[in-house]
């Protein structure tokens, strides 16, 4: 039995035990259903090196990719959230060399919250702190039971921690704020607060009103006042904002900042973003270190510039070549963006078949990081996790492919 790290989501569970016999996974312990699906992905729909639909050798594919990028005036490098830190660093170097636009999935995902957290405008903590000290966990627009199955059992509700020996039975409260009665809301029982789609800002105003001792302007006033008293009694609270909240708030994120500041006047309250892809936060941190911006950066003209016009939504329409890695924009992005992206010469680096590899001019297969390739990744709370490969493969890692492309340029 080898102890391995799962790269299925940004919890990066490192207590997985996998038995490998004859280069096949025979028995895996402690892995959730989502992670199990991720591990099984090794055995189906793997890609092969292709140029314009013809099978070629690895070296030919890499040199063709280098040609496309070199001849492009305004290339876009997109994806990155499912790559190791090492590959992301190589990607940023490549973007600098090409004067390209580089962006990751956070620009239409958790970016606006991550920016505030990395800047220190919203207080945050690690998930181990959550386990050891937190007595109130709020899942806001997130359903970890489906998106991060082991979130509640490893950190936020069920485990016993240093200061929380009685855990969920007596000391912890778990609250869900969501538009639908999700599986997590089921666990939260009475502490489930339904908000209408787009109603998160109003709900936040109501929480602020309750904290001031005013009567909130929502349907169930009694329940809101109860919520207010739970928040006031909390010793160490954590809010887990998910995509539901981010999409609903958008340019009103200052309100969330205000709520966090108000809560911190009363007691300790932190926020940990529910990052989806396993290393989105890693990319944000790396790029911030390098340029001062967390995503959507253009190196055109030698100097990094940032703004909505450099984000993937805008850049997809203005670029003349694109490299896609660790993400499938054609199935995830809005139709107009996907269509624009499918129209330019596309280089897809992906271990498995996706819409992007189907539409790509050059497809380069890579080793699946975490299973076939080692590296480092940043968990959703900022903790760095190092992992080693446990399956053998002849395929190069993302980092090796990017270095190869850079050398060919």
């Amino acid at each position, binding site marked *: 039995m080898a102890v391995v790290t799962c790269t299925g989501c940004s919890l990066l569970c490192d207590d997985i035990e996998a038995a490998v016999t004859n280069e096949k996974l025979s028995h895996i*312990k402690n892995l959730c259903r989502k992670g199990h699906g991720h591990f099984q992905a090794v055995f189906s729909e793997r890609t092969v090196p292709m140029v314009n639909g013809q099978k070629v050798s690895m070296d030919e594919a890499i040199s063709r990719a280098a040609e496309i990028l070199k001849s492009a005036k305004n290339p876009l490098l997109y994806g990155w959230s499912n790559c190791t830190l090492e590959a992301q660093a190589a990607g940023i170097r490549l973007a600098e060399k090409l004067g390209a636009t580089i962006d990751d999935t956070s620009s239409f995902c958790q970016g606006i919250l991550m920016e505030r957290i990395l800047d220190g405008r919203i207080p945050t903590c690690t998930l181990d702190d959550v386990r050891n000290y937190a007595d109130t966990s709020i899942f806001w627009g997130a359903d970890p039971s489906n998106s991060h199955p082991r979130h509640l059992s490893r950190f936020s509700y069920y485990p016993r921690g240093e200061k929380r020996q009685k855990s969920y039975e007596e000391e912890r409260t778990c609250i869900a704020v969501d538009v639908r009665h999700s599986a997590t809301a089921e666990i939260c029982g009475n502490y489930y607060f339904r908000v209408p789609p787009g109603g998160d800002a109003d709900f936040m105003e109501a929480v602020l009103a309750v904290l001031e001792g005013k009567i909130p302007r929502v349907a169930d006033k009694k329940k809101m006042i109860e919520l207010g008293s739970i928040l006031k009694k909390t010793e160490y609270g954590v809010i887990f904002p998910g995509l539901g909240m981010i999409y609903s708030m958008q340019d009103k994120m200052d309100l969330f900042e205000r709520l966090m500041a108000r809560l911190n006047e009363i007691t300790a309250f932190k926020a940990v973003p529910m990052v989806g892809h396993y290393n989105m936060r890693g990319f944000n941190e790396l790029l911030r270190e390098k340029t001062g911006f967390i995503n959507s950066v253009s190196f055109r003209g030698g100097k990094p510039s940032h703004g909505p016009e450099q984000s993937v939504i805008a850049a997809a329409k203005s670029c003349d070549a694109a490299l896609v890695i660790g993400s499938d924009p054609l199935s995830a992005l809005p139709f107009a963006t996907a269509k624009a992206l499918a129209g330019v010469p596309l280089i897809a680096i992906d271990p498995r078949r996706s819409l992007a590899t189907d539409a790509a001019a050059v497809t380069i297969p890579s080793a699946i990081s975490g299973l076939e390739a080692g590296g480092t990744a940043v968990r959703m709370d900022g903790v760095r996790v190092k992992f080693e490969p446990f399956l053998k493969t002849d395929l190069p890692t993302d980092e090796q492919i990017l270095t190869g492309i850079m050398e060919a340029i």
Partner: protein
Amino acid sequence: MVSAMEVYMLLPKTNCKKCGLATCMAFAVGLLGREKKIDECTPLIEEKKYEAKLKKLREIMAPIENASETGLIIHPEKCFGCGNCVVACPVNVAADPTRCGIGLGPQSDKVILKVEDGVVVCNNLKECRRFGPNKILCNACTATCPSKAIEFV
């Protein structure tokens, strides 16, 4: 889960006492508690007019008869593999306090519930607090399940 009333409706409702119990309702409760077998209701087996009821009864009782000794039923198709039950189960925590206690997957062989190949499986059922003469009605695993993949009869 089947209720005692549903089972009762499929019994002869004559209170003939041939099973040794005073009423058919008591027999229905006995069936659900797995202290009685369907075959002990002789009129239901022997008389032809109850044939349809007997067939229906066997149908609804099938999952209960297949349940483990403590009445635990796991539906693997519903399980998320989240491990909430693994961490919440008091016997698991007592058997592996340094790992189960803080949310990690268990390494000890004495635990009851563990996640294997993405879904929960149960072993060592004799350790369950619902087993044996001094049983208590613990529901840590069912109450913590987000998808109702664990049930007790």
